Structure formats: structure tokens, C-alpha cells
């Protein structure tokens, strides 16, 4: 599981995840993921294009991050879920809790709205 933090200090913080966000993968990136949001003042876009699986702890990490951004009055959006991941998001109704959009353009539009 990999996490790249792009644009810290700019108007948009991009968190790019790649790999399997299962229990072990989530444990590996959770601390840095939350710290990256805490250390920035920007709106947050999470890029899941490279993520092949999201388990229950991965869902929790995303929801906790969205809440963290919300508390700091910053906008938060997830984009790029592969079809298997999008199916999990549908099952757990994630889009009812945090903004989930198809791709980067939609994410940027959402943050500007």
C-alpha cells in the first residue's frame, strides 16, 4: 500500500493511494494519511485510481479523514474508484456519508462548487 502526498501547502491537497486498502494496507498508511490532512490548510482530494480493494478499516480511514477535514472547515472529495471498489462503496453507502465522484475533473468541479 502506497500513499503519495501532492500539493501540500497549495490550495489543493491531493492524497494518492495505490494498492490494497485492506487491514494491513490501512495500518501502513493511516497515520501519514491523517497527518497529511492535519498539516495542511487546503481542501482534500483523495485519488483512488490505483486502489484495487477497500476493506472495512479502509472505509473507516476515509470516513475519519472526511470528518477531520470537515472539522477544519475544509472540503473533501474521493475520486477514481475502480469498479470493484465502487461496488463496495455502494454496499456500504459511502456516498451518503462523504462526497464520492467518478474522476479528477468531477472532483475539482465538486471542490469549486
Amino acid at each position, binding site marked *: 500500500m502506497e500513499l503519495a502526498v501532492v500539493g501540500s501547502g497549495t490550495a489543493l491537497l491531493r492524497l494518492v493511494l495505490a494498492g490494497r486498502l485492506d*487491514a494491513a494496507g490501512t495500518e501502513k498508511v493511516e497515520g501519514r494519511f491523517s497527518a497529511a490532512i492535519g498539516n495542511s490548510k487546503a481542501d482534500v482530494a483523495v485519488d483512488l485510481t490505483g486502489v*484495487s*480493494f477497500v476493506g*472495512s*478499516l479502509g*472505509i*473507516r480511514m476515509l*470516513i*475519519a479523514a472526511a470528518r477531520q477535514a470537515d472539522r477544519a472547515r475544509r472540503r473533501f472529495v474521493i475520486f477514481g474508484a475502480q469498479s*470493484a471498489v465502487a*461496488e463496495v462503496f*455502494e*454496499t*456500504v*453507502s*459511502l456516498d*451518503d*456519508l462523504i462526497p464520492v465522484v467518478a474522476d479528477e475533473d468531477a472532483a475539482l468541479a465538486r471542490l469549486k462548487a
Partner: protein
Amino acid sequence: MTDDATERHPPESERTMVRRAAPTAVEPDPVLHVLDLEPAEGIAARRIGLDATPLTIGRTPQNGLALPSPDVSRSHCILALEGEAVVVSDLGSTNGTIVDGRAAQGPTRLAPGSRLRLGPFTLVYRSGRASDLARAEEVERDLARAGRYVAALLPPPVAEGPVRADWRFVPSARIGGDGFGYGWLDERRFAAWLLDVSGHGAGSALLAASAMNILREHSLPGVDFADPVAVLSAANARFQMDRHGGLYFSIWYGVLDIGSRVLTFGCAGQHPAFLVAPGEAAPQPLWVKSPAIGLAPDWPYRRAEVAVPPGARLHLFSDGAFEITAADGAQLGIRDFLPLLSAPAVPGLAEPERLWRAVRGRARPGPLDDDVSLVTLDIP
């Protein structure tokens, strides 16, 4: 309890004063190398210690470890300690020595946790100080105890009457936090549910047991357990993640009225249950979109209804039954699992057992990553 619990204990700084001093003599605590054989082909699990003498593994009794299976060669492989490392070499076996999914080409060094496959058998290599290995074993035993406690909360099968129920529960070594139950609410209405707590381990098992006890004993004050919305809403109010160690759970909850043959159900963050009706080719998904219990305070859960035809069968199962890795490394999903529900019965095998064997047969050898729960309700 209203009094402040912290007042009954001295503060941390005072308690640390009475800790025992470290022993002056250092106990010997050597680094050990062991292989844990996982149970297969009627052979029980056991631990084999490795020492300076190389260990040969093969089908015949003259090997240091004999694994009786036609898929294991007479002399299959040899393990030797080289410095602080364990190295395995295949001895020209027919089916190969598979280390972490790859056939060993030449001497191959094992990393702690490496999985060695010989035919149907899996051996896991572990190394560490004797005290660390003992501690890890104790943790595993505790997890097994947690699994047995959850299993003790499960209802007995129901063989007679207007609803017949049976199940198969296979907790994973790390405990996945599955739980389920069913039973009559009154003379007409039968409730069934299946939940899955996020994460693994003792924490997930504790929350599963806590939620299971509330659902079993109907101990949510003022809640009508025949109303799935009331149950999900009350559970959601009781088990908010922020107050439960960051854990949450998904659940499917349904109530069948055997008079009207209407099944009313709700679902929180879980995949559907499936209804198989006689003569229907595809199982019917029973699902309502809403988040899991504990994620969103005051969520307005909804219910749905379905008519249950005579001879129908209702399947509840956990994601551990379909989120599995196949023998070829492919990640399977619910679409791979669903055809099993409509497959013909196997004479002499209970339906949950038939499904479990099919799941087990598709997964790669070795223990599964998550709990597997399979519940079948027959409604004649």
C-alpha cells in the same frame, strides 16, 4: 455507576513506584526457528522446531517430517539453518516446493511468516526469541478463546416447524467479528440477522459479542424487535463508532411473518441477503442502501418487504464467504459466489456445509483471511 472511577485508584505516578525491579540475572532467551504445520488431510496442526540438523520432508517415514499424501514426493525438500537464516531446497520433487506462492528454484531463504506449500500441506516459518514466540502463541490461544465465545452465542439449528434454520461458522485465526442469530419473536414472527464488525481481532469479537447479546436477548428498551427500522435505529444510537473504540458493524436484519408470508427487512452497510424461490433461476437480492451501524448518528434507516413463496430458501452470509483469494491468486467477489446458491443440493450434506465446502474448495490452501458465516433458512 455515577461515581468517578478514577478516584478509586492511585494516580499512575504512584502505581509505578511499586513495580518490581528488573531481575539481575539474565534468563537465557535463545532465538528459535519453528515450522507451524497447518491442519490438512486428516493431519493435525503441530509445531516442528528446527535445529543444527537439517530437516528432510517427504512422504515416507524416514524423513524428519513425514507428510503422507500422493502429492508429496518421497524426498520432497530439505531445510537447513545457515547462520541465523533458514534455507529450503527442493529435492527434485514432482510438484515442487512452493514458497509464498512461487516454486523454489535452488536454495531459497525463508522470511519470518513465509508459507511453504508441499502438495496439500502448508507450513508457516516463524523465528524469534523463545519468549516472543510464547507470547504470540498465547495471543493466538486468546483469539481462539474469543472465537469460541462468539460461537457459544450462536443459536442451535432448527430442524422442524414452519422455519428451519441451519448454519456453518468458521472463524478465521485472527477473528473477523462475524455474528448471527435467529428465533421466534412470537407465534407468527421469526427474526434472523447477520452482522460483521469492522477489522479483526479481540476488539472486533468483543463488539460482535456485545451486539449479539443485545439482539439475542432483545435488550434494547422500548424497541419493537419485529420492526427492522426500529432495531437498526436503536443499535445505531447505542453503538456509535466514536464511543466504541472506532469500531462499527454492518448488519442485515429481517422478520418473517409466517401468516402473511411477508419478509420485512433492513440492511445497514451490508451486501444483500438472497432469496431462492423454487423454479427461479437467479437468487433474488434483498437489500436496502444505508450506512453501517455506528457511522452516522440519527441515520433514517428504511425497510423493504418481499413476499416469500412456498418452498423458498433465505441465505444470509458474511463477506468472508466471497472475498477470498483463489488458488491461482485471483481475488473473488460476490458474483463468483452467487451461482453456488442455485447449485443442486448434495445428498447427505446440509446446505450451509455444502456451501462451505464449495467456498473452501475455491480458496487457496491454508486458513481463510476472514470469518465465514453461512446461514440458511428454509420456509416450506
